[in-house]
């Protein structure tokens, strides 16, 4: 069964220089209870994609084509076709989002209890006692003391506590899908560890699916079942977490992995990816990665490659040179 099915989604932003093609025809599926990581650098379109899934894109953005089908078990519905009221109810009840900056996601002048109460009310939980009960239960699940936290104002909580409150708040209506934007980036190492363990534990307990976006490969290695690599508005590789890390087939995925310093094992040789991400007002011809790609041949400048199955049907890469990549990186990279 598929919980979320994204088909050929394209999102553009209006800018003075022309349309910025942030998401250029993205398709992927998420199964119930699955954790999918979307990795890529800034400017890869991963944030636009994440907010596009529940239409939280800013005003100057336009979804130009595609479908975002969400199947709550009754019938698949296209999020892009929902009217405002349906969409409002859909968010939080079916799919909730946890933003990167825990600090700015709260209204600073109201206490945590009111944040829960307002959210509950807006989504049809009219009985404050029911909200209180559910909020307390969720706060305990995220290892916080409800009596203390519900009375607190956002500034009274540490970064890690705020992030946990946000996760609890996102889970208030029992969504089947949680979308997280860089869920641990702003947090300290030990706090980050708690949040990672917490997310995994919550998924196991409550069974919701997660789509999280991160520039941090290690977070994907730690938490994801499946990983999508995004570059210049496209998914360029999709694989199970072990296939992606041990048998990467897209040169960009390989480049990212070789750029990350390791803490365990041999330090290994590191190398940055030359150049910088392309201008999405005028993406390069052919494969958008070709100007930075050590594997590029003439044909890469002309052909914009589609995702094709590589080693297994579930592992796809958008690279006409994937077999050359495979030959060079061998079976194991990470």
């Amino acid at each position, binding site marked *: 069964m598929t919980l979320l099915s994204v088909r050929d989604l394209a999102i553009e932003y209006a800018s003075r220089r022309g349309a910025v093609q942030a998401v250029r025809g993205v398709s992927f599926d998420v199964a119930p209870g699955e954790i999918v990581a979307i990795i890529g650098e800034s400017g890869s379109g991963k944030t636009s994609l994440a907010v596009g899934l529940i239409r939280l894109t800013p005003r100057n953005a336009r979804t130009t084509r595609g479908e975002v089908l969400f199947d709550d078990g009754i019938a698949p519905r296209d999020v892009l076709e929902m009217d405002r009221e349906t969409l409002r109810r859909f968010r939080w009840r079916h799919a909730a989002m946890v933003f990167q900056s825990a600090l700015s996601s709260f209204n600073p002048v109201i206490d945590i209890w009111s944040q829960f109460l307002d959210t509950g009310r807006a989504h049809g939980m009219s009985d404050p006692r029911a909200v209180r009960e559910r909020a307390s239960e969720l706060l305990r699940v995220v290892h916080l003391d409800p009596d203390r936290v519900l009375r607190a104002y956002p500034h009274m909580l540490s970064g890690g506590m705020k992030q946990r409150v946000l996760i609890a708040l996102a889970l208030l209506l029992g969504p089947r899908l949680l979308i997280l934007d860089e869920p641990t980036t702003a947090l300290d190492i030990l706090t980050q560890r708690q949040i990672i363990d917490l997310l995994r534990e919550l998924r196991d307990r409550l069974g919701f699916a997660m789509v999280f976006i991160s520039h941090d490969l*290690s977070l994907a290695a730690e938490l994801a079942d499946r990983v999508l690599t995004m570059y210049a508005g496209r998914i360029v590789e999709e694989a199970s977490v072990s296939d992606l890390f041990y048998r990467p087939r897209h040169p960009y995925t390989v480049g990212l*992995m070789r750029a990350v310093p390791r803490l365990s094992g041999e330090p290994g040789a590191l190398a940055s990816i030359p150049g910088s991400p392309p201008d999405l007002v005028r993406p390069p011809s052919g494969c958008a990665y070709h100007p930075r790609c050590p594997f590029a041949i003439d044909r890469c400048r002309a052909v914009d490659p589609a995702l094709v199955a590589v080693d297994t049907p579930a592992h796809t890469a958008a690279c006409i040179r994937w077999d050359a990549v495979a030959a060079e990186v061998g079976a194991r990279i990470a």
Partner: protein
Amino acid sequence: MIELDRVTRTFSTPGGTITAVSEVSLAFGAGEVMCLVGESGCGKTTTGRLLAGLLRPSSGRLLFDGGDVWATRGADLGRFRRGVQLVHQDPYASLNPVRTVYDTLSAPLFRHGKARGHDGAVRLIRALLERVGLTPPDDLLPKYPHQLSGGQRQRVAIARALTVDPRVIVADEAVSMVDVSIRVTLLDLLLGLRDELGVTIVLITHDLAVARYFARHGRIGVMYLGRVVELAPAERLVADPAHPYTAALIGAVPEADPAVTRAKRRVPLRGTEIPSLLALPPGCAFHPRCPLFEAGLCDVLVPAVLPIPSEREVACHVAVRERTRVAAPA
């Protein structure tokens, strides 16, 4: 060459006085590379600012070539100011948005009398830009910060630090804000300055893997709540952390290898919350969270930073006892 000698720095806040840095002693030789790591609030940025002479110690001394910096005036102070340069985390904030690359780099050259006239300045700036890998330099000269990528801005910030021929560069989270794909190049650029110019480099980072890479021929210092808790050659610190806090950090860091990261051994902590600097626990500040905690010792006595075998130092009663006992002949 540059040394913090039992430096403490306090700040007044609305909640009371906090000690951001407490009794920190760190000495650096010429051309040495060191990384200071720790979580937010550990005092690593304050330590960097103390090293760069931007903050005056509340007590203790900053020594440069043996002289007490805050006791000197005039020419010696000027020599120190030029000798130690700070590169900030966010070059977007530290570069003036209305100044071109030429303006940014020529100002210190003129101010310190290194260049006279436009032509002389351009010659020096071209060389600086080439040194930091911004080529062709003439394309960069008329650019404003917003016309540069994050990596380019950070290179300009490094070039600006180099205008005064510093002997020490303190780089505070200098690569945290640039994309992972280009971080290594920036780290290598800084290391290259060490190799070519003999500059001492102190990199402040929250990222242990970055610290391991950068300080592979140097040391890592770990800070917690204002104190240095461990100081050791990078590989030794990572492979065999002596302080329980260091061990906890290393066990907690996720790694870009699914099998490795999912099999990592965590150090179980007794508490999760970091104490407030306004209400530091007595004794060792880590004791409420520490798995090695011994009542009557750790909650009473502040552990001194003491040497243990293999060129390492650690501030932990238990670790010092265990490690020196193991090393001593029976």
